[in-house]
């Protein structure tokens, strides 16, 4: 296939899609890792059964839309009507929707969440536009709370196309960025464009992608490799897997653009084994692209050669670290190594290697097509563009969304996620960066959503992969901190001693505090040990592991809570076991017969104990 054929194909596939939506009723079911668990497959099967024998109904699969709280979600578009989004579509509702909307013409506004167009049809990929109004009482997605802040650059095709169909991807303008990179730009121009965009790595370390590409480009040693790091091992981060499941071709395209820019003929896509569906869909995408002639030798007649292999990981959180990941590909234990040399100089098999996160690569196509300056016009001063966030915990809307940098964090918490699930338990803190960051208390929710603001040293926090987990008064900050350290202890690869032993020490100390055995001296020890681990660990994961402890000590609200645990043996959320708290109360001269445990009466004990306790 050469370039002209690809352009013709693009027009043809686009026309086919337009024709399909013009002539038939299209039912798109969101089938991805999260919705399948909520029963989306049964919904799809029910629709299949119902649509049997009606030639004007077409069923499609789509994925990664992100409206997880109302899964299974379904889009129905009838000719002449806008595309409608329905939530909570179980089998019974599927039948009702089919009978009332597909057969009849009642759009069931009580079940509809919103109406929307294809994401790429919105200017700047923003749903919130002023000229869209309600349709038959159903709001436009840009006027719903969930949708109005979103700008879906990375997720541009998620929820619109069938992830397993290369035709649909090409029809939506797919591989146009790759084509432009091949025929209209030199490697230096591509790198310059990416540098202008100001895009910073989305995996956690936030290193400038343009500079990384430039470094690899300037090292001429061969062979050289490129790797997509899709090993997303942290709990409560599900962005990469949704992108794999929802839009695998755009990852491949971003990777290919990177390969053109840095002249790399061999690339890998490393997918975590926790995401079998992501692995399957990515594998299919690569195969389809190879069949189409978008991979292999002399691609589109440009003399550029590149082949891609999809590799599966084998668990282990540490494999998300770039050097550990490369050892995993090499078939050895995935343990990070001391840097420098960086992976750009000595990566896979000791050769120059370009490693970027899934989300980073996913931006490349848009940056090339729209220009780096366009991309840099979104976001804050130093964090450009948008970020996919994973919202979990007791939020009203557990979801994946994409918002621009630079707004207050409160926007994500109160608008996108809709505040607490139960208004009786307001959100008092959010954990950021999953297991490699600290939390923000409610008093700091207005902090700017920006990599550098989050990463300020005094807060001991990190944006990381931008997951936000809510804590209400039913969650205890010491307990969550203990969990994170316990997690890091379990997942420490054990190569360097500070992390291996430091995390164990911190875990034990926090457990003691949770159990009512905390001592005043523990606070100093926690701080000292945490700083030691951060200073001496060799990889980013070890360096981030004790952050929640330091964060707890740095932020006044959390520190008070820790003091309550240590001095009064009192856990406000009533989560910590506090088995030895009675002794504690006695130690501080509080009568032991006060009922401090079962109900939240412990507050009294705290008030009695703390003034007299040692400071």
């Amino acid at each position, binding site marked *: 296939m050469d370039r002209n054929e690809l352009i013709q194909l693009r027009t043809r596939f686009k026309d086919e899609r337009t024709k399909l939506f013009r002539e038939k009723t299209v039912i798109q079911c969101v089938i991805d*890792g*999260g*919705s*399948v*668990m*909520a029963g989306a*497959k049964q919904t799809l099967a029910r629709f299949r059964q119902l649509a049997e024998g009606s030639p004007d109904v077409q069923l499609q699969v789509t994925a990664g839309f992100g409206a*997880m*709280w109302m*899964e299974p979600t379904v889009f129905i578009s009838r000719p002449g009507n806008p595309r409608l989004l329905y939530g909570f579509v179980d089998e019974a509702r599927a039948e009702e929707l089919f009978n009332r909307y597909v057969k009849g013409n009642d759009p069931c506004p009580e079940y509809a969440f919103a109406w929307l167009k294809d994401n790429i049809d919105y200017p700047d990929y923003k749903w919130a536009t002023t000229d869209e109004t309600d349709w038959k009482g159903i709001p436009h997605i840009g006027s719903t709370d969930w949708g109005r802040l979103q700008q879906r650059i990375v997720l541009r095709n998620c929820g619109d196309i069938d992830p397993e169909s290369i035709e649909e991807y090409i029809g939506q303008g797919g591989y146009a960025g790759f084509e432009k990179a091949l025929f209209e730009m030199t490697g230096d121009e591509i790198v310059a464009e990416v540098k202008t965009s100001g895009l910073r790595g989305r995996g956690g370390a936030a290193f400038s992608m343009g500079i990384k590409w430039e470094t690899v480009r300037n090292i001429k040693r061969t062979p050289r490799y490129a790797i997509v790091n899709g090993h997303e*091992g*942290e*709990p*409560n*981060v*599900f962005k990469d*897997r*949704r992108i794999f499941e929802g839009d695998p071709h755009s990852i491949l395209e971003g990777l290919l653009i990177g390969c053109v820019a840095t002249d790399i003929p061999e690339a890998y896509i490393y997918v*975590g*084994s*926790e*995401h*079998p*569906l992501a692995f399957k869909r990515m594998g299919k995408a690569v195969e389809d692209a190879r069949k189409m002639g978008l991979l292999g030798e002399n691609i589109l007649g440009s003399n550029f050669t590149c082949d891609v292999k999809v*590799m*599966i*990981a*084998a*668990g*282990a*959180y540490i*494999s998300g670290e770039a050097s550990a990941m490369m050892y*995993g*590909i*090499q*078939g*050895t*234990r*995935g343990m990070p190594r001391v840097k420098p040399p960086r992976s750009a100089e000595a990566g896979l098999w000791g050769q120059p290697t370009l490693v970027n996160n899934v989300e980073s690569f996913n931006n490349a196509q848009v940056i090339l097509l729209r220009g780096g300056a366009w991309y840099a016009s979104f976001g804050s001063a130093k964090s450009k563009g948008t970020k996919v966030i*994973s919202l*979990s*915990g*007791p939020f009203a809307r*557990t*979801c994946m969304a994409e918002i621009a940098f630079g707004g207050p964090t409160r926007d994500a918490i109160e608008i996108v996620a809709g505040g607490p699930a139960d208004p009786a338990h307001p959100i008092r803190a959010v*954990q950021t960066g*999953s*297991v490699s960051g600290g939390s923000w208390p409610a008093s700091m929710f207005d902090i700017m959503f920006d990599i550098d603001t989050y990463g300020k040293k005094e807060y001991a926090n990190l944006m990381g992969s931008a997951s936000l*987990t809510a*804590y209400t008064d*039913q*969650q205890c900050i010491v*307990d*969550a901190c203990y*969990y994170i350290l316990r*997690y890091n202890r*379990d*997942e420490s*690869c054990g190569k360097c001693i500070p992390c291996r032993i430091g995390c164990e020490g911190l875990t034990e100390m926090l457990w003691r505090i949770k159990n009512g055995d905390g001592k005043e001296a523990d606070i100093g020890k926690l701080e000292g040990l945490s700083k030691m681990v951060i200073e001496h660990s060799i990889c980013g994961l070890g360096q981030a592991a004790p952050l929640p402890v330091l964060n707890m000590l740095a932020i006044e609200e959390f520190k008070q809570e820790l003091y309550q645990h240590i001095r009064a043996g009192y856990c406000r959320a009533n*989560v910590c076991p506090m088995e030895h708290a009675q002794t504690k109360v006695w130690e501080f001269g509080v009568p032991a017969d006060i009922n401090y445990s079962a109900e939240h009466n412990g507050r009294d004990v705290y008030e009695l104990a703390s003034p007299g306790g040692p400071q």
Partner: protein
Amino acid sequence: MALSITRGGSSEGSNPGGSIELAKATAIMERYTTWNANEALIPMLQEIQHEYGYIPDVLTALISEQFDIPLTQIYGVATFYSDFRALEQPEHRILLCEGLACYVCGSQQLHRAVKDKLGIDYGEATPDNKFILERANFCFGACQLMPMVEIDHTFYGNVTPEKLVELIDQTAQGGGHSSHE
């Protein structure tokens, strides 16, 4: 002893003491002969793990011989990554999601419920070798259904301790479980 078993179908069935069937493993290894041996190791072990439920010693020896990879390296990989099991596994696996959201929203109670019901902690098997309890140190990616439990590759969301005990009873009686993607 394990090392003495050689490749090929002839040893199949004649192995003493209910040992493993080699044909499937050789078929898996056949597919990776064109690969770079080191690169092939983890995908190959994944397939073996999937097929047998653990990585039998015999096969690590076989792979080592056929692909010229040091046995120590294979053993190192098989014990490092959390997907691989070195020993034959109990019949049913209860996997509690311990992502942060699940943990702070109820998986501790589930853990307690399993402890009370079966008397096992994380990583332990019941004496009759029927159940093993494991903690998922990763996310199932369906945080709207927290807390989540996976029993024999079937996922259950919004699980309460009572429901979990019920599920364990059902599983013990061989209640209907469908395989899951």
